[in-house]
């Protein structure tokens, strides 16, 4: 379970210090993991943030944090969930920070973009930006990544029982937006 995972604590001895200098996997293992996860992660983060550039930075940071984390034995799906959890948290941090600093949010800027307005009916960003960040996480994970409610709970940090009603509301809003924009 992801909840059981812990990020490595600060080193207390020379031995711990040496352990800190290693990544969680070898370069060959990383290549395989990266090939399987990079595209979905980048797409997920670019949909959450509304910015490709920001998504690039968050992807790099997510992999770095993943590589430096202390992980128990995980299967491929759990590793992917853990990576997505890191990305989700980074995206939320960025969202909160932008709001706190009163800076224009990347995704709001995206929504105001003229080109986006012209292509409003078909532009994913302009539709997704109309629902809150957390709802974007839920619908993307459920309908694109095919995550179960348990996996969504692991990635988003929500309780499994809360996923269903929240996902329902997110889906309802998104469906209304798609219909309003003439999606179907």
């Amino acid at each position: 379970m992801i909840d059981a995972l812990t990020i490595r604590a600060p080193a207390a001895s020379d031995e711990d210090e040496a352990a800190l200098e290693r990544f969680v996997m070898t370069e060959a293992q990383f290549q395989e993991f990266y090939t399987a996860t990079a595209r979905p992660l980048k797409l997920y983060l670019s949909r959450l943030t509304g910015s490709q550039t920001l998504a690039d930075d968050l992807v790099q940071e997510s992999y770095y944090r993943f590589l430096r984390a202390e992980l128990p034995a995980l299967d491929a799906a759990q590793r992917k969930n853990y990576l997505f959890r890191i990305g989700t948290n980074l995206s939320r941090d960025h969202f909160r920070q932008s709001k706190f600093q009163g800076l224009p949010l990347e995704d709001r800027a995206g929504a105001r973009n003229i080109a986006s307005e012209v292509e409003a009916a078909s532009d994913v960003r302009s539709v997704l930006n109309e629902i809150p960040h957390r709802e974007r996480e839920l619908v993307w994970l459920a309908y694109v990544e095919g995550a179960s409610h348990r996996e969504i709970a692991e990635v988003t940090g929500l309780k499994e029982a809360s996923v269903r009603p929240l996902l329902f509301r997110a889906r309802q809003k998104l469906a209304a937006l798609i219909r309003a924009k003439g999606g179907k």
Partner: protein
Amino acid sequence: MEAMEHYCEHEQEVARAVRTGFWSPELREHAERCEACTESMLVASWLMETEQQAEVTVPEAGLVWWKAERRMRRERVERALRPVLIAERVSAAAVLAALTVSAVWLAAATPSLTSALAGGVAVLAISAGSALYVAHSWK
């Protein structure tokens, strides 16, 4: 008034069917008459369509790995230098405290006002010089 929440136990199956393209006749029939599943089908189809159309470029795995290694090395150096920086700050604080005590002592022990002023100026100059040196070395 808020609409009543309507769930269906087949929603996830419907979403999976949209993703994989594999529909059993029963599921298809159910999805067409179930409000929740129809909505799931709409959202899933729209998201999948946008996902498939998206042009996503990601850097090579080797580049991401190289950047991670470089950052790990940089952090290692920063960690190694941290005790040195702390020692520098502690030394600077000790020097300033000693100089302050010396200035007080000098002013009290010297009867001549001129000598006291000269001593004070000298101590201040040394303090300022030390502070500047330490501030520069921190950069």
